[in-house]
């Protein structure tokens, strides 16, 4: 039995009508034997356009519709709703894309019109065999997980926890705080970074809805939006935080001296250590890579002096399983390594620092208690050269992108240096100054006018050690002169890159990364906090270089998106999913192997579909040699009919 299909052809202003004779398409399709009604309209997606569809369904007793318009990614939902309003099942509505796939890519009106007719006709054939379907409903696990506890992760966790939902916050380092806790002062207001972040960190540690897992990494994940099952490996710290009284006796006896990660190698630490005084959780961590005590015959000095007996060399990694409904990924950034910068000494000169090291040097709680000193001889540097875009905006050798924050933090560094060493001289080499942001431009101007920082427009070609100083060869393109400066210290504004192992995590979570390794958002403009995988959201510098206010804003956005899932008891999934035909299935399992969503499994020698996991991609259907599995409403039979319609006449 043929259906009574309605065909609605949209002009989209001149987007379609400019290249396609829409009236002709509507007329031709009107003659199709399955089509009971056809018409065209200037903007089908407008309210009058939708009403026109709804009314036509009622008036002509249509049981299915085809709308010839733009891509289904844009208005499929609109017209499904219009169909529903007309009283027919929403899956009896199909889109024929005659804009992106026809009018926009062709010039010849006559041929484009024929193509538009064929595209529409094939959609009519498809809708003819469409079943009426109902969305699949499934319950939601109403708790969330945040991966990464820098400022973005902390903000997202607090936002969600404050609305009453439980949050699991996972951090791979021994303490939360991320890179922000390493900073000295923040632009453009110069407030102390630790002072504004540590209250949030304390809130996290005391929050009844936040379960904090530090020194932990996500190992495995399964499930789908609303119901993820995450396996987390909690690495052993070898110290029981409940027993530890923070007496600090252990670090006094530990014989190991190694470089401190928190101070980026500017200070040393013992093998047993607390990352920094405000660390949360406030406890010691025994670094098993440097500790000799974990060898079969042990050093054991720290355990000997530990009165409460908090040190346990036999502590093993723990696997923790968590069920969550939504995940926010805030894995942050690392600096592009100085070792990569051959032209700037490959990291071999101690007085050539990167931005974060200089932050530690300026920090009141840093290695020098805020005094700016050269790492090599601990003397006050009198001339400091700051080099912007070190590794950024250099597609030939380094990173092609702009790291966004370096203009601002270099201005801040130069300013802080001048505040610490008023008789010193600060030079900044820059390509452009990008100070877009509230109060940012004024901040840069303040560095120039009030603090006398010398800005030189040009790149530095080489730096090398010369007579105990760092000789900088650069150019001032505004004056047209070569510049040679014998500096006491050089600070490289290293590019931001995604944090180490973010790519591995992305692979694990099945979210995509962009060409630079940052996490890919679902849409660059309209869905900037969502990943392409439903239920996973992005926050902070893991998605792209950004400063603190932007990271915080995105974190709150991601939290709001995650809450939209958690606040519902049930979620709905498209019913256009794979369906197996058990009589034809031989249980060969080829479809199970190719399914990218792990939605298929074999049970009693037959394939079974987990409808909630299935995204209806059709890979299984294309792989099956016996047509024993097909996607609802796009079955092999429908596809043959569509091909027929496209090729015929």
């Amino acid at each position: 039995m043929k259906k009574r299909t309605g065909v609605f052809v949209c002009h989209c202003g001149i987007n379609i009508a400019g290249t396609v004779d829409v009236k002709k398409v509507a007329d031709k399709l009107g003659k199709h034997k399955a089509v009971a009604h056809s018409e065209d309209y200037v903007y089908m997606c407008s309210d009058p356009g939708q009403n026109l569809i709804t009314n036509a369904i009622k008036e002509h007793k249509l049981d299915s519709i085809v709308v010839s318009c733009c891509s289904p990614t844009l208005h499929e939902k609109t017209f499904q709703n219009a169909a529903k309003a007309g009283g027919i099942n929403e899956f009896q509505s199909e889109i024929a894309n005659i804009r992106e796939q026809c009018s926009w890519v062709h010039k010849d009106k006559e041929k484009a019109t024929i193509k538009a007719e064929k595209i529409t006709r094939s959609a009519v054939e498809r809708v003819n065999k469409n079943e009426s379907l109902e969305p699949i409903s499934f319950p939601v696990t109403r708790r969330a997980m945040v991966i990464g506890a820098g400022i973005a992760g902390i903000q997202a966790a607090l936002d969600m926890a404050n609305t009453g939902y439980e949050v699991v916050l996972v951090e791979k380092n021994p303490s939360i705080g991320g890179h922000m806790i390493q900073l000295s002062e923040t632009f453009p207001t110069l407030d102390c970074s630790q002072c504004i972040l540590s209250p949030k960190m304390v809130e996290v540690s005391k929050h009844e809805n936040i379960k904090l897992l530090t020194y932990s990494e996500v190992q495995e994940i399964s499930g789908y939006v609303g119901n993820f099952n995450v396996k987390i490996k909690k690495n052993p710290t070898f110290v029981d935080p409940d027993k530890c009284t923070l007496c600090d006796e252990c670090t006094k006896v530990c014989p190991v001296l190694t470089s401190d990660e928190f101070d980026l190698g500017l200070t040393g630490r013992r093998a047993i250590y607390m990352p920094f005084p405000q660390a949360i959780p406030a406890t010691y961590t025994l670094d098993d890579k440097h500790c000799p005590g974990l060898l079969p015959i042990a050093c054991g000095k720290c355990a000997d002096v530990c009165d409460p007996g908090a040190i346990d060399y036999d502590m093993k990694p723990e696997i923790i399983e968590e069920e969550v409904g939504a995940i926010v990924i805030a894995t942050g950034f690392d600096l592009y390594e100085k070792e990569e910068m051959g032209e700037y000494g490959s990291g071999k000169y101690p007085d050539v620092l990167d931005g974060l090291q200089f932050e530690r040097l300026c920090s009141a709680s840093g290695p020098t208690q805020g005094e700016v000193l050269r790492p090599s001889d601990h003397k006050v540097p009198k001339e400091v050269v700051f080099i912007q875009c070190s590794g950024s905006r250099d597609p030939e050798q380094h990173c092609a992108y702009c790291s966004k924050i370096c203009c601002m933090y270099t201005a801040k560094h130069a300013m802080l240096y001048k505040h610490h060493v008023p008789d010193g001289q600060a030079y900044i080499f820059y390509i452009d100054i990008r100070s877009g942001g509230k109060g940012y431009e004024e901040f840069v101007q303040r560095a120039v006018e009030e603090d006398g920082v010398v800005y030189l427009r040009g790149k530095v070609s080489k730096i090398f050690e010369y007579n105990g100083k760092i000789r900088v060869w650069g150019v001032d393109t505004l004056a047209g002169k070569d510049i040679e400066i014998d500096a006491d210290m050089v600070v490289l504004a290293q590019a931001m890159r995604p944090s180490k192992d973010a790519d591995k995590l992305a692979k694990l979570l099945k979210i995509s990364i962009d060409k630079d390794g940052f996490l890919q958002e679902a849409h660059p403009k309209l869905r900037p906090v969502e990943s392409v995988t439903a239920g996973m959201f992005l926050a902070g510098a893991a998605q792209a270089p950004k400063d603190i206010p932007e990271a915080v804003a995105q974190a709150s956005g991601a939290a709001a998106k995650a809450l939209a899932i958690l606040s519902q008891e049930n979620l709905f999934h498209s019913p256009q999913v794979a369906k197996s035909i058990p009589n034809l299935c031989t249980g060969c399992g080829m479809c199970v192997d190719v399914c990218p969503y792990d939605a298929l499994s074999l049970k009693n020698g037959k394939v079974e579909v987990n409808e909630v996991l299935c995204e209806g991609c059709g890979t299984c259907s294309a792989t099956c040699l016996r047509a024993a599995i097909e996607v609802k409403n796009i079955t092999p039979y429908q596809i043959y009919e569509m091909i027929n319609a496209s090729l015929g006449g």
Partner: protein
Amino acid sequence: MVYFGNLKAKKGEIHINKDRCKGCAFCVEYCPHDVLEMSEEFNVKGYHPPYIKDEDKCMYCQLCETICPEFAIFVTLKDEEEEGEKSQSRS
């Protein structure tokens, strides 16, 4: 480069009583930083005792002293005033 702060590497001295050594090489095997190596020379008992190959690497953990079955090697620590460990100096 010298680290900022007061945290210093431990100082000490390694003493080898060559004539007590029976050449088991436990100390060489278990030294976490490969400070020791067996020598070519003979002691009074006719064994090869270890010698200090690279004292700069030594962190004076005294592991060699702990495991030597013959009490032939021991470490003395030089008492250096280590005022203000990193974590204290910052508080």
